[in-house]
């Protein structure tokens, strides 16, 4: 079997262990056992990870880099997610229901992703001690995140959305093209530029 551990640096192993321990107590050995089911995938900048119409075979987490998830609406693209280190990113419905994806995934930076394939995930859930529990807790967390985001998008004003986002993710202004951030926050590009002044004046 493909053994990603040999390729996982000590640093990323620590990163993954720390991440999983947010959900439940896990020893390094347990994490390594779980990693036997996973694989690391490497992508260049601007590489498509998943196309519309393909079935997403992987449940994935970004180890390093940046991925955007978007959906085509007529001639436009609407950004649904900007995922960085530690974020789960895949087409949830496609992966979970084994149906063609409506969303696409593309890297914005050279990116490393830790993925577990659908069939191996089923095996891990069944065989790995506490696999079901870990799976439930991760999905629950993702669900809450999705819900919070939906709520923010609907309940907050544009200015609130902008200020909260740049305060919580200051590095993203450097890492992500402005048009993508604007689409993600559901703000017109020209309004986004205007709001950026607001941050500069504050400093």
């Amino acid at each position, binding site marked *: 079997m493909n053994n990603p551990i040999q390729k996982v640096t000590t640093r990323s192993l620590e990163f993954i262990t720390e991440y999983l321990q947010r959900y439940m107590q896990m020893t390094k050995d347990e994490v390594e056992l779980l990693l036997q089911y996973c694989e690391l995938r490497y992508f260049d900048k601007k590489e498509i990870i998943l196309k519309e119409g393909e079935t997403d075979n992987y449940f994935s987490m970004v180890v390093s880099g940046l991925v955007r998830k978007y*959906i085509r*609406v007529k001639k436009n693209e*609407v950004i*649904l997610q900007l995922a960085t280190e530690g974020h789960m990113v895949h087409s*949830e*419905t496609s992966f*979970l*229901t084994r149906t063609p994806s*409506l*969303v696409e995934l593309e890297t914005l930076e050279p990116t490393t992703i830790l993925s577990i394939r659908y069939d191996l995930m089923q095996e891990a*859930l069944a065989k790995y001690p506490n696999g*079901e*529990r870990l*799976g*439930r807790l991760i*999905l*629950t*967390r*993702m*669900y*809450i995140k*999705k*819900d*919070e985001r*939906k*709520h923010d998008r*609907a*309940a907050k004003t544009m200015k609130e959305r902008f200020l909260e986002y740049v305060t919580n993710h200051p590095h993203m202004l450097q890492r992500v093209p402005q048009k993508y951030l604007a689409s993600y926050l559901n703000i017109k590009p020209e309004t986004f530029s205007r709001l950026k002044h607001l941050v500069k004046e504050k400093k």
Partner: protein
Amino acid sequence: MNTAKPFLSYLQKFVNLTDAEFEQLLMPVIKFRNFAKKELLTKAGDVENHFNFIIQGLIRKYYTKGSLEINTQISTEGHIIHCQESYHSRLPSEYSIEAIEPSKVVSISYADLEEVFAASKKMEHLGRLVITSTMVLKDRWQIQMVKMTPRERFLNFVTKNPEMMQRVPQKFLASYLNFKPETFSRFNHLLKGHVRAVHSL
């Protein structure tokens, strides 16, 4: 037990759960709760303590934006409704939940459900499958809201939920489908043609 039967049937869509297992693992923690029309199940600012499954009635989940109430869920018999984010995070809810019709729900408290999961791997498995299914519903809804035009959303909704048009006040449906009440009235005309078209099939 008989009253809880719809809940058992719902769970059996996910795993092969016997009557005896249901009786032994879940019945001890199940509470039946009844709510009058317009009564709150959960109030914004409170921590959600229950998982609820609707046995009978019609219930909405909403938040307030200024003087407006925005509905994020409107559910009938056979659906789960609670403030998941508050329930799981144990933080005050931003949403309220209110009965639109007199309603009966099956409820399990947070502490009880956690014990059920801890005690049985099968229940943990079931819990994962239920959360997976609600995740898929939420993901589809999100995509629908972005991808479909208001007109498409309206037709899609009434085709899939014809009975909701009778049961739910229009002002609730309008905010749920994210359009203005006046737009909703305009779409109603569209519906007459649509129903005729469906009937002539």
